[in-house]
């Protein structure tokens, strides 16, 4: 089509730590040794907790459960880049990030054992519960950021969603609002290449998700999501800009879901083992261990000790989980409204009567 170009755009890709753990020193962010070690510990804890929960699920002690294996770097490194009062608005594949924010290890087990109690965020601030309706949490992230902005507060909001979720209207609407309002948002998309059985090629025609930011003239970048340093650096810089009032950023983190979508899923039905193997080589934890080793911060002995420590923590969490006595059954009536409503209390009474009678009959 003959005509004149009126605007040019580009999108960049960033990797700091390559697949072999070699760092690009020009890009290397300044992170204290303690923080680096914390990042490693959190990623490993998340991995081991996932593995344990999978076992519990297979034994019938947990319900359907999504795991984060292979994607730990994204949410953990993003969370490391955040201040304590920055909001963390996740979906369901950010176990590592939640652990970084201080989530007790027993909580996810409670959630996946069908208990809302697991959504309690004692000890953490500004971390929202697991969100199941895809992309529906992204408008919340923008509203939260709007409140920050008009009150002139100094924190920001980091939200997470998957590649498939960028097809939802909620996602588009939210990014447009954020760009228009110039809210302090960082939108992290975990592009793990699959939405259950749907590969990117059936999800979208565009070659990257980062370029979707162009639709909103939003600062956007694609990073190696299995590279914790790249994720950290991109998130940190985005947060700095957000807090300076320079508006939102879209970060596409390229990663991979190494296991099943949830425990109800069988990836053999739709994807080749080869593809998975390629990505196993890019494992974020292995890579980061090499990096720490190169920095002389880590060695096999320390690793052994850490594994043992983590195992101890998880054992304790499982024990706590298993010690939880029965739930109070009428609790849903407590939280339906902030004030007591007659119609609800009437139904609660009927519920309790029936519960008692059902028990008597049984």
């Amino acid at each position, binding site marked *: 089509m003959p005509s004149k170009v009126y605007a040019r755009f580009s999108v960049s890709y960033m990797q700091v730590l390559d697949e072999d753990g070699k760092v690009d020193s020009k890009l290397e962010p300044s992170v204290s040794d303690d923080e680096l070690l914390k990042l490693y510990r959190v990623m490993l804890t998340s991995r081991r907790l996932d593995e344990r929960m999978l076992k519990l699920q297979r034994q019938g002690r947990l319900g359907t459960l999504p795991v984060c294996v292979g994607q730990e770097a994204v949410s953990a490194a993003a969370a490391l880049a955040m201040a304590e009062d920055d909001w963390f608005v996740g979906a369901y594949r950010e176990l590592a990030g939640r652990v970084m924010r201080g989530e007790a290890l027993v909580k996810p087990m409670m959630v996946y054992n069908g208990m809302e109690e697991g959504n309690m965020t004692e000890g953490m601030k500004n971390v929202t519960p697991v969100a199941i*309706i895809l992309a529906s949490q992204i*408008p919340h992230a*923008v509203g939260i950021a709007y409140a920050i902005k008009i009150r002139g507060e100094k924190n920001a909001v980091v939200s997470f969603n998957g590649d498939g979720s960028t097809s939802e209207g*909620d996602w588009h609407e939210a990014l447009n*609002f954020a760009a228009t309002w110039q809210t302090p948002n960082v939108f992290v998309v975990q592009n793990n290449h699959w939405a259950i059985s749907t590969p990117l090629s059936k999800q979208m025609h565009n070659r990257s998700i980062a370029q979707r930011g162009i639709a909103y003239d939003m600062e956007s970048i694609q990073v190696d999501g299995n590279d914790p340093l790249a994720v950290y650096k991109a998130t940190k810089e985005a947060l700095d800009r957000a807090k300076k009032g320079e508006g939102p950023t879209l970060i596409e983190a390229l990663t991979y879901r190494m296991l099943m979508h949830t425990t109800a899923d069988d990836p053999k039905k739709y994807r080749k083992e080869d593809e998975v193997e390629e990505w196993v080589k890019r494992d974020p934890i292995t890579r980061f261990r090499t990096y720490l080793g190169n920095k002389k911060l880590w060695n096999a002995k320390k690793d052994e000790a850490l594994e043992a420590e983590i195992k101890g923590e998880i054992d304790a969490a499982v024990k706590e989980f298993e010690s939880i006595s029965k739930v109070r059954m009428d609790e849903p009536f407590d939280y339906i409204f902030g004030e007591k409503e007659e119609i*609800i209390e009437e139904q609660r009474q009927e519920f309790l009567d029936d519960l008692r009678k059902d028990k008597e009959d049984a």
Partner: protein
Amino acid sequence: MPKLTMVQAINLALHQEMERDESVLVMGQDVGVNGGVFRVTDGLGDKFGSDRAIDAPLAEGAIIGTAIGMAMNGLKPVAEMQFSGFSYLSIPQLEGNGARMRTRSRGQFTVPMVMRMPYGGGVRALEHHSESKETYYAHTPGMKTVIPSTPKAAYHLLLAAIRDPDPVVFMEPKHSYRAFKEEVDDNGEAWELGKARTVQEGTDLTVISWGAMLHRTEKVVEQLSEDRNASIELIDLQTIYPMDGATIAKSVMKTGRCVIVQEAQKTLGPASEIISIINDKALMYLEAPVKRVTGYDVIMPYFARENQYVPTIGRIKRAIEETLDFE
């Protein structure tokens, strides 16, 4: 006490509440500079600035979705849907998040917000501009649905809705926006939500209505009370959910006869729940079937036919007479 139209009464409530409480803001399509297509938010932009009278981009889902986020972070947004016919775009956010956040987080995150909007027929508008679908909202647990019928009720109930700790859907009968004025005591008092209002007491028959139908029904009741010397109790439902079953049951136990006038479609409109409540609590007192005068289970026609699809004075009158006469 000023005499106000419903539009003015709502506008007054918004002004006062935004003055009183810094966390309250209004948002929606054209609510700022333009003051809303019905001028309900007139003057708020000038007075409180564009941060608190937000001309939002054109997306109902995100207006409600971001309002939920604002509410989770300490604000009290009053979001306008330009017409209720477009509010269904917000159902996913309301049902999926607004109404659930308290339960999901066991009270840690709450969503004190209002979605307000004009609804109902009778203003010669285009398609989708004449809907009465309060059922969608009343059937969604975790939120309240309120419909004022007069300027005064609109004022006090909107204050209540804004102060309520949970999401409230506030549906304004646009047919009554400027149809009549009423003295409004602008004392800043909130009425209690979840309570029906007995407009007039009576012993022979109970009539229940709400929204734009209330005004119309009131006239019929007045006339019939006189013409037939009947003692008719008229109840303004006011809150569709949580429904005031106690008031309904008490009245029907007294009168034994009941007519419900509802603008919404027949199947699964609020009248169906009212009848069910009567069944649950007062069936054995009934001396006649409950009569419902409702819209029909069709698409609300464009305005050449619309008027006949909203309960007419004639239909209301005949329903009351038949129910009074039923033996």
